């Protein structure tokens, strides 16, 4: 989206580029290069070089502790293919993708719709919903790790009062991923604000006209609100999917006694497993192979989402 929007094609100028530059053009070029020089240096130093090195490392036996680094071809990738933990980390990541992302978007949309009713104290509610997003993540995860506690925690206390059997959120392997989803839903504030901004673009007179014609709440939601919101929803979906692959702090702090893996590796996400390989086991080559596999997976998911969901997006302006 943003990339397409950024490229302003100027074919006429490009053709004329062969002619000798005028003094103004030359001057503008050097000024432009001056202003962009930090970006160019930064791109080469902090992006291009690491990407290339990462690819190179993935074909080597490089570890941070040993000294004999040599080219081992596809061995890292082959080992990865037979690594059970890698597959379960992928499985868990997909679980989070299937549950946290869509549920999070729907939840954020509901909050945005409620706030958009123009009720009183709107800004008060908005602030409350937004607080979890600005609270320092580590501190709130630490608090939540005791909220999930079966003995001292409020969550199970509330559940018990409602006569629901309280699960051991952080100790029962079957409940660790739902715990991560619950924590994730608490922090949908950013998405809510973006969707709330998107709701301002849904034409009010269209809503009113539909209301007069007898369209119900859900029918209006489905045929007016969601289509007008679709660019925002697509943005939320894509960024959400990418973010899951980088989801690190919540699992890492929640399950800090097992370096983020959870009981019986039940909550290990690909980001955590990559971190473990790089900075706990010091297997740089192996971690790099993992990073490239994840990179490809993320790229494929992004393209597929654009293809299948992006097609259904309605752009009001064009």
């Amino acid at each position, binding site marked *: 989206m943003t990339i397409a929007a950024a490229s302003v094609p100027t074919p006429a100028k490009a053709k004329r580029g062969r002619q000798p530059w005028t003094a103004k053009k030359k001057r503008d070029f050097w000024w432009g290069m001056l*202003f962009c020089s*930090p970006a160019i240096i930064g791109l080469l130093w902090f992006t291009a070089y*690491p*990407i290339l090195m990462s690819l190179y490392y993935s074909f080597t036996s490089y570890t941070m502790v040993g000294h004999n680094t040599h080219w081992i071809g596809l061995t890292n990738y082959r080992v990865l293919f037979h690594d059970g933990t890698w597959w379960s980390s992928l499985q868990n990541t997909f679980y989070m993708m299937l549950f946290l992302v869509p549920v999070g978007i729907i939840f954020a949309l509901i909050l945005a719709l*409620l706030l958009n009713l123009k009720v009183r104290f709107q800004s008060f509610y908005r602030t409350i919903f937004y*607080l979890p997003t600005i609270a320092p993540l580590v501190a709130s995860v630490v608090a939540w790790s005791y909220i999930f506690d079966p003995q001292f925690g409020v969550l199970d206390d509330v559940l018990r009062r409602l006569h629901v059997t309280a699960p051991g959120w952080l100790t029962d392997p079957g409940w660790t991923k739902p715990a991560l989803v619950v924590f994730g839903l608490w922090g949908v504030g950013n998405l809510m604000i973006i969707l709330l*901004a998107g709701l301002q673009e849904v034409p009010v007179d269209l809503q009113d006209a539909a209301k007069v014609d007898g369209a119900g709440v859900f029918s209006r939601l489905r045929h007016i609100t969601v289509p007008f919101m679709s660019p925002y929803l697509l943005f939320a979906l894509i960024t959400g999917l990418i973010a899951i692959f980088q989801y690190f702090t919540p699992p*890492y702090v929640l399950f800090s006694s097992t370096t983020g893996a959870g009981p019986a590796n039940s909550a290990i996400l690909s980001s955590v497993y990559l971190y473990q390989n790089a900075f706990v086991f010091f297997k740089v080559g192996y971690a790099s192979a993992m990073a490239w596999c994840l990179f490809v997976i993320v790229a494929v998911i992004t393209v597929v989402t654009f293809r299948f969901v992006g097609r259904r997006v309605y752009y009001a302006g064009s």
Partner: protein
Amino acid sequence: MASVTATPTIAPTPLRARKKGTRWARFVEHVVAHAVLIVISIVFFVPFFWMVVGSVKTLGDWARVPVVWFPHTITFENYIYGLRVFPFGRYLFNTVILCGSTMIGAVLSSSFIAYGLARIEFPGRTAIFVTLLSTMMVPYFVTMVPLFTLFRSMGWTGTYAPLIVPTFFGVPFFVFLLRQFFRSIPSELTEAARIDGANELRIYWQVILPLAKPALAAVALFQYLFMWNDLLGPLIYISNSDRYTLAVGLMFFKNQYSTSIGPMMAASTAMVLPVIVVFFLAQRYFIQGITLTGVKG
């Protein structure tokens, strides 16, 4: 077109006369909405409430079953004990140093680059901008490991340099945000300065930056919050416990003293409160900044 969505709220203006009973329906709608919003607000707020209450709860109250929601006796023991084992002041100082220096780096470099991309027309501008944007698509984990080995070979590990220096070379997301903002500034203003003989550096510093204060404030805030919250960066690069940030310190504190819940809640509260205070003071900029990022395709 990439238009920044800062559309003002449109007041619902009824086009035709509403039917009878609409008023009543609206009233019911609002009551239901308030009820739902209040319930959700409580759910969102309970963790904070519990954290703050937990930080002043006595050990006896902590052990009680069922959970004590409103303690009768309030104690500050947890804070005193927490401060003894958790060097809060030191970590706070480290975090503030990191937040401050990366804020300077991010605001200066990103606005500098954004000026070039927004206000000067030169060959290669689009290519640089598109490349910069596409790096936002590169997940952090791809560059994380080689960057670490690079900084290690430069002898930078254990210092704050790996966290600070990159912000002085432009943060793509901030460049994008500021570029959008700079483009919305009328060109008459810069043209006038140019005719008066000001060069680009001067226009950037004396014309554009003062006009872009809200956007710069949003960028500074984002960077402050990012650094205040960041766990992975300091976790990777900082090994000396004297140099921990609050985030890393709190995480290790949790590992070592997982049974002392009260002091842990005290430390968490002490870390959350400053952020919430900043948020309330700067909420306007903040919401504006978030809204600036909502880009229509």
